[in-house]
């Protein structure tokens, strides 16, 4: 074996040191070069890709022009769904690098309100005159969805109610007219059967996905029930009296979903309705997750109806559908016609050291100017009623695009049931829905009993 002398080792050390010194002087990227790191930027996390963050640069530029003293850094955090996104935000919190502001959807609103988000009450009261225009333009149901135990945690910027998309080619083939606003579940079954009779074997009248939004929940809501108990918290009068005087005394301090309601007779009735739909071949066995194949199949004419909201208009247009190729209607009526919606807005994190700057960002993003910059295309439904207009939907939207916002005005609307334990609750729901609707009628009570046990366990955590 080669023997190394002391002189040899020293020479080697000097050599390594020289190389190291040269390398240290070499111009290179380090962590400090990452834009916004260790500077005083307002850090804003959004769900999406770098392209999504890039698309919001016009919003950032307009904000910076108005507030040149507040540098902004948009961070795109990718996730397959909101739960995935929230997990990554929590990881950032654990790593000691939480954003100052974060987009939070109804799925995570109560989780954030309970643990991470700063209430906006004092800011809203302080700048009431500035935000009055926002509240004048936004439906109170959307605001109530972001109240938690009497405090407001977010001012939503977009929402989507679960309406029913209709394939006009399938309707025409079966000789079906656009449904009445209060069409019943029996009417829905009739439409589905006629669509199926008029089509080939690859056609499915009703397609749905197994998730919290647009899955089993709309069928529970129209039967005037839910899989969780639903109560309302006290408080929040300050907001209703100030901004929605007509709603004072009618609205609450936010929703509380604290127990399982899976063994309710109406829940069983709704599940049986959907189970029968699947067994008759009128509906698909629900796809897991977001239903990646949905746009392709709907635009290809293989699907007759599916629950969707205003977010789908741009996607269908990009897939080549003309406005006349499809239409949108309310979800059918059962015991009620209560609609489900999901919404999203910016939350300020408790840990932020720039809360005042963060509030300026929230205010700007909820202003008409900010929202017009954020939503130039119909990729979602803006919460401002004035923005849901002909200009947004012309040449792309279906004939009855007004339904997207009218749902809030004309029908009772309730947010996605998402308590602070939303991820565990959603997992419990998703894993039991499929078995319940693909099994036999005799197996349904046992499936709902399992759902009840899983939900109870999830809500205990």
């Amino acid at each position, binding site marked *: 074996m080669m023997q190394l002398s002391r002189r040899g080792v020293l020479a080697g050390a000097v050599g390594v040191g020289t190389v190291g010194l040269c390398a240290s002087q070499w111009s290179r990227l380090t962590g400090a070069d990452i834009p916004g790191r260790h500077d005083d930027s307002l850090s804003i996390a959004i769900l999406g890709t770098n392209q999504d963050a890039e698309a919001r640069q016009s919003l950032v530029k307009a904000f910076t022009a108005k507030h040149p003293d507040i540098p902004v850094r948009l961070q795109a955090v990718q996730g397959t769904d909101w739960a995935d996104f929230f997990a990554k935000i929590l990881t950032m919190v654990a790593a000691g690098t939480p954003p100052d502001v974060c987009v939070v959807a109804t799925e995570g609103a109560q989780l954030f309100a309970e643990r991470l988000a700063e209430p906006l009450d004092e800011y809203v009261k302080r700048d009431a005159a500035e935000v009055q225009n926002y509240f004048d333009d936004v439906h109170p149901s959307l605001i109530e969805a972001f109240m938690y135990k009497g405090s407001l945690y977010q001012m939503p910027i977009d929402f989507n109610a679960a309406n029913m998309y209709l394939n006009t080619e399938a309707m025409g083939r079966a000789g079906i007219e656009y449904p009445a606003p209060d069409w019943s579940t029996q009417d829905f079954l009739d439409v589905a059967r006629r669509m199926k009779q008029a089509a080939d074997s690859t056609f499915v009248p009703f397609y749905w996905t197994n998730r919290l939004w647009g899955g089993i929940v709309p069928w529970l809501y129209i039967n005037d029930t839910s899989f969780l108990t639903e109560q309302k918290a006290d408080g929040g009068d300050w907001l209703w009296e100030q901004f929605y005087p007509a709603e004072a005394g009618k609205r609450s301090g936010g929703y509380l979903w604290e127990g399982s309601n899976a063994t309710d007779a109406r829940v069983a009735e709704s599940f049986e309705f959907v189970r029968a739909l699947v067994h008759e071949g009128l509906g*698909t066995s629900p796809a897991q997750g977001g239903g990646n194949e949905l746009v392709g199949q709907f635009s290809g004419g293989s699907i007759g109806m599916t629950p969707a909201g205003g977010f789908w208009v741009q996607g269908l247009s990009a897939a080549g559908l003309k406005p006349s190729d499809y239409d949108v209607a309310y979800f059918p009526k059962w015991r009620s016609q209560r609609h489900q919606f999901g919404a999203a807005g910016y939350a300020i994190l408790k840990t932020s050291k720039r809360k005042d700057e963060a509030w300026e960002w929230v205010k700007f993003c909820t202003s008409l100017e900010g929202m017009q910059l954020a939503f130039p295309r119909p990729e979602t439904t803006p919460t401002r009623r004035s923005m849901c207009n002909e200009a947004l939907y012309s040449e792309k939207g279906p004939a009855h695009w007004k339904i997207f916002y009218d749902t809030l005005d004309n029908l009772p609307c309730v947010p996605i049931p998402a308590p602070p334990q939303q991820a*565990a609750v959603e997992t419990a729901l998703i894993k039991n829905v499929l078995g319940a609707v693909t099994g036999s009628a005799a197996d349904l009570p046992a499936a709902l009993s399992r759902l009840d046990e899983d939900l109870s366990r999830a809500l205990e955590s």
Partner: protein
Amino acid sequence: MSRKTLIWLFLAPTLIGLGLFTFLPIVASVLLAFFRWDIITPPEFVGFDNFAEVVTDPTIRVSFLNTIGFVVVAVTLQLAVALALAVLVNAKLPNLIKSFFRSVLFFPLILSAASVSIIMSYLFNENFGVVNQLLNLVGVGNVPWLTSTHGAMVVVVLVYVWQNFGFSFLLFLGGLASIPNEVYEAGQVDGASSWQQFWKITLPLVSPTTLVASVMAIISALQIFDQPYVLTRGGPGDSTRTAVMVIYESAFKQLEFGKASAIGIILTIVIMLVTAVQFRLSRRYVFYG
């Protein structure tokens, strides 16, 4: 400078890397299993509570049983397919064709498991998938591949085996190449048929490779996550939920990092036990020439 110092000097970069990025996280994970921690609030010491919860949680129990069932079926299938194809490719074929098959059969392994699973979910879609459309052509109705308990596990196994047999296949090819031709020639002289040669010569002499391939395949299969997560999210019900999936769900969905660590420790112990049993059995069933 002493020789001993020099050795430690050379080892230092590796040891520091291992310490920081392997041993420290392992120790932290073990410690975390004794705490309740949701990232947001400070950790709270709970002793063995997390382990007690893991043992009594029916979902975790089912997930471990699913994982064991999956490992038995998937690894058996993976090794059988890999060995059969290795024997076929090792036959007297031109080198160019051998290279072609080696590349093609190894190819799935280099693909992302998530991407493969997304594509497979399209192929096995009950209503619109190509697989059912082909079955329709021969008079078979739509099979609920991903929406029935048994169908979902079958698809998970098929997708996993399709993607992973390539590695075992390469190991077997190497093992087969090391068997001297003279042994087969002697067998032929004694009148052994091809089938007898396979059972009496190939299988015993390739047994060291089988041991390595099976150990690696079992360890890998016990950690299955991507395929069921993308294809079925563990459903219908818990029918395709696996041990690593419940670790992920406990940590990142339910924010129970202590419980997730406890499940991870139990899974590690299972992997160590299974590997130890394999090596113990190998004394009887593995022949080293």
